[in-house]
């Protein structure tokens, strides 16, 4: 079954009547691109948030409850300092991965905006 967004814009059911400005929100919310955008975002953001929250709280938990273990020497420093330092690099890595992944979200966004521009152009033509 062809999706609404793949139909020629003039055939989309909304365009049989002149749309009120408000119904643009419902229209976008029903688009496949938008649904895919939300899925793509949550597929990245939810695991990313869980990862950084778990990794971060492991630090106060381990230094708070196992100070002897964390004071174990590693080279010139100890485990506790290395773990704390690693938090910076993990945070930067997650941020870099997000920026890379977000290009995909931007593409969905651009397609939605292009579709709306076309829809608006059709509507104006129909109105004249």
């Amino acid at each position: 079954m062809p999706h609404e967004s793949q139909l020629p814009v003039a055939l989309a059911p909304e365009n049989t009547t002149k749309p009120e400005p408000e119904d643009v929100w419902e229209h976008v919310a029903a688009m496949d691109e938008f649904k895919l955008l939300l899925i793509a975002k949550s597929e990245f953001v939810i695991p990313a948030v869980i990862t950084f929250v778990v990794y971060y709280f492991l630090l106060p938990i381990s230094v708070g409850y196992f100070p002897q273990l964390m004071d174990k020497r590693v080279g010139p420093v100890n485990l506790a300092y290395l773990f704390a330092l690693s938090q910076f690099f993990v945070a930067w890595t997650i941020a870099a991965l997000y920026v890379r992944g977000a290009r995909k979200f931007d593409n969905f966004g651009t397609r939605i905006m292009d579709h709306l521009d076309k829809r608006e152009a059709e509507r104006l033509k129909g109105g004249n």
Partner: protein
Amino acid sequence: MSLTLGLFLAFIVVTLGITYWAAQRSKGAGAYFAAGRRITAWQNGVAVAGDYMSAASFLGIAGLIAFFGYDGFMYSVGWLVAYLTVLLVVAEPLRNAGKYTMADVLAYRLSPRPVRAMASISTLTVSTFYMIAQMVGAGALVTLLLKDSGIHFSTAVIGVGLLMIVYVVFGGMLATTWVQIIKAILLMSGTILLSILVLAHFGFSFGAFFDAVSHVSTGVDPKTGQSIIKDFLQPGLRYKPPYGALDLISLGMALILGTAGLPHILVRFYTVPDAKTARYSVVWAMVLIGSFYIMTTFLGFGAATIVGQSYIKTHGGTNMSAPLLAQALAGNVFFAFISAIAFATILAVVAGLTISASTSFAHDLWTNVIHRGVERKAGEEVRVARITAFVVGGVAMAIAIALGPTANVAFLVALAFAVAASANLPVIVLSIYWKRFNTTGAVLGLGFGLVGSILLILIGPSIMGIDGPGATVHHLIQRAPIFPLENPGILSIPIGFAGAVLGTLLSGREASAEHKFTELQVRANTGLGAEKATAH
């Protein structure tokens, strides 16, 4: 000391020049409150870093690490990781859905008047407490640095207060942003220079540096007469049993959730043209903030090993660790330079806080709550914000002078983060991501979070405690603390979330809020209908 004074004056002259330039360009509300939304990603990233790296970071963290070693470094870690919450959860939806303040996002689909009133009270509380802490710090710093010139604590506080009022009243967000950028660049250069000098002191050997850090003399044992040697890499010098571990976890919660609820950080994302720029600006900020906090290792441990605790204690106390380190490494010129940077840091942060507080008062309380969203005369909102900046600045000056230079200000910053994490963050997140969320939930969430975190601090060890003989920190209430943790987050954040969730579930469904959720979701995720940058 005249050199320090000269550097202070140079910074003041440059920033006043920027304010004059910005005043010529700031016409209209969008320009005044959001710098016309024309700030670029790197500029905003540097400005976010500037807003964030306050006196508490530069002077406070260096001091905490110099005195408590590893436990002080835990703050540094939390302050960077917090930006993942900003990046992944808050920045982009906020930019797309709001206009000038944090409350815009809440008011988008909830009943605007109660929500804005509560959010504004919370914003003013966070900003004022944060600001008082900065001003007490500024006053103490200026008095100490210029002690030969006879400048009093209250004169110094009034001077700082007046300058920040000038930046905000005349230059608006554009001037504030550029003051932040200059300050952040100065702060980063100073920190890099100090770190290199610390490493040079140890012959650029990390081994020698960390070896010294593992054997820090913390004073002389009065019984044996021998000096006490401590390993500063060892956790637990500050957060001791039985509650130390819980306090660390609680601190971590307030840091990583509080940052994304700090009004003066959130408003920065309205100064950029779109959500994508907001995202890149967070990344810029993370690079700067992360590098800075990693270097606090050299600042703090350097002060502990090279300057020594006993010297710091008798020459201005913990907060002077970084400037004293500069003096020990490269003499008075560098001392003056680092002190001037600390002064610039405080001034810039205070200006950032003032503009977010006055924007919230003018936009949320005045226009939208009192006058139901109608601006009666053109330019009224900007005028009200300017007057508010005077009032907010005046109140902060008065309280800072009343508290005096020896006030324990750490709890004010802890309070600001706790309120931001417990009151602001739950309602921001739930209004963006939970369809069923309603007005009652938002009001109760803000109220519970605000009252809960303030109460827990009042009955905690920052305020309550029995001063031992010769104690340097004086407690306001001489009784054993009822709540054992310094950081209330572990309890107050769940209280804030519980208020928001229970308030929603126990009150009826709000059809308009659920209907508008679709609109908010589309707008937050696509930027459709978001506020545009203004032309020149």
